[in-house]
């Protein structure tokens, strides 16, 4: 394939000393065969995540397994389809930080709502006339 002309490693370098605009596509051109194998991996993981639902690891473990597979898929999409593997690290850091904040948000919300679960239960029972 023609991408041999664009080795993986000349992805990223400072342009200041290049002094010319355009002309060089220093960005990483992902080999087509590689892209396709990434696609196959993603399809395979999709198949696995559906198949694994049929197995019973217990409610929580099934969720953990499903989320672990989803995370792997997300990482693969991010790293290779979205070029984070070859991008400036800052882009990846932005992604990871946003995910961290979402995690923080969800964790604190769950901690909070856990405090009220018993009250909710009692209120519902009152509501249903028990």
């Amino acid at each position, binding site marked *: 394939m023609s991408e041999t002309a664009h080795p993986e490693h000349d992805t990223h370098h400072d342009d200041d000393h290049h002094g010319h605009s355009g002309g060089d596509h220093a960005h990483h051109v992902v080999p087509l065969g590689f892209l396709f194998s990434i696609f196959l991996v993603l399809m395979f993981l999709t198949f696995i995540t559906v198949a694994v639902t049929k197995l*019973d690891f217990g409610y929580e473990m099934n969720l953990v397994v499903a989320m672990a597979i989803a995370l792997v898929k997300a990482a693969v999409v991010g790293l290779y389809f979205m070029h984070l593997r070859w991008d400036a690290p800052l882009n990846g850091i932005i992604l990871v930080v946003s995910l961290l904040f979402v995690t923080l948000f969800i964790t604190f919300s769950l901690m909070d709502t856990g405090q009220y679960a018993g009250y909710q239960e009692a209120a519902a029972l009152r509501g249903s006339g028990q």
Partner: protein
Amino acid sequence: MSDAHHHDHDHPAHLAHHFDTSEQQLESHKLGMWVFLATEILMFGGLFCAYSVYRGNHPEIFLFAHQYLDTTWGAINTAVLLASSFTMAWGVRASQLGQTRLLVALLCVTLLGGAGFMVIKSIEYEGKYSHDIWVGGINGFYQTGGELMNPDGAEHALKYLEKKQKKKYGTAGHGDEYGDHEGDHGKEKDGYAKADDHGKDGHVDEAHAKADSHADNAEHHDDGHKEDSYGGDKYAEATAEPLSTPAAPPVIEVSTIVRPAYAQAGLIDSLADGRVDIPTGPQSFATGIGARQIEHHGSHYPEFDELAPLQANATHIFFQIYFMMTGLHGIHVLIGMGLIAWVTYLSGGPIIKALVGPVASVGVAAFLVFVGMLVGFPVWLWVSIGVCIVAALVSGGLNFAGLSGYGGPAFSPEYYTPVDLVGLYWHLVDLIWIFLFPLLYLIH
């Protein structure tokens, strides 16, 4: 200020003069796009938080209600979206290498993938809507003050689920209607399930043949009047005898979830009697309760009647969350499709540019006719359709007269920023679906 950037060498048209190089420009654009994508993740984060809180508080609602979602459609949609992500990534590669024709073709395929996703989503939504599963009060499970807003809808939705389970497991879920009489089920269930299987062949299970009332009941299966025979007191009468001696504690097959202490303490009435038998945590796995549940229900998920009051009350929330999450995601797919169409237009040759105006106008007109057929044709709709047709004629005429200029392909290996950024957006849409699919469709 701008004087500082008056270089001697020629500036390409695409390079804004506050950038030194195309490289630097692309890097900055990508950084900006990633910041935008981060805000998108945070926006979806709100919905994921709502999901987590409700699933954390009401795991059984999710076990029950997710049965309404069709895993097959969800999996197909995941595959469609992954494939379109692949063609998009390939498209970015084509634009980097200056393969313009390939780029246009790949963008069109990506667009088709998005359209396919939305078509499948529409089929799913239509199915839900037709079974009274929708947002707000239409939803069959929507309750205010303990009262169902749409009782017919609830019945409709429950019957639909029963049919669906029957198709999936070969026997209808029938645990709920006599959920109170579980004392004898340890033995009864086996025979009963067999009677169910053999019913169509006219066999009456031997285990039941000795009791006339049971045989009677089994015959009801032959007629296929499941709901009727179960709904009435027939079965309750038939099983009255063993019930009068409730020696064995009932087995409550609700789920394998670890019960909170207050549930064990008997706050939840449907669980209070059987709390001794509720396996919790790893124990439930060891006891293989999943298999027993399938034996009992036809599925290993809880039935609606087994849900505690609070959970029955909040069942509709699963669907509200489902529609909000997939709806917002669907809007993103539509926006992404619009962006891909725009990039296709930019990277297309003269023929595509000439076609886009008329095709888009006719498309919008067709959509408006569709809306009109649904809701009737008010004046504003007629006016809009007229405007679209005029626009199609005018833009077609301009192209025909050669008046709409064509400035050559917009992208080159030096400048393909819009393709790259739209690609990032499209991959993010894919990324979110990667999480939505297992969270909504694959609950176990």
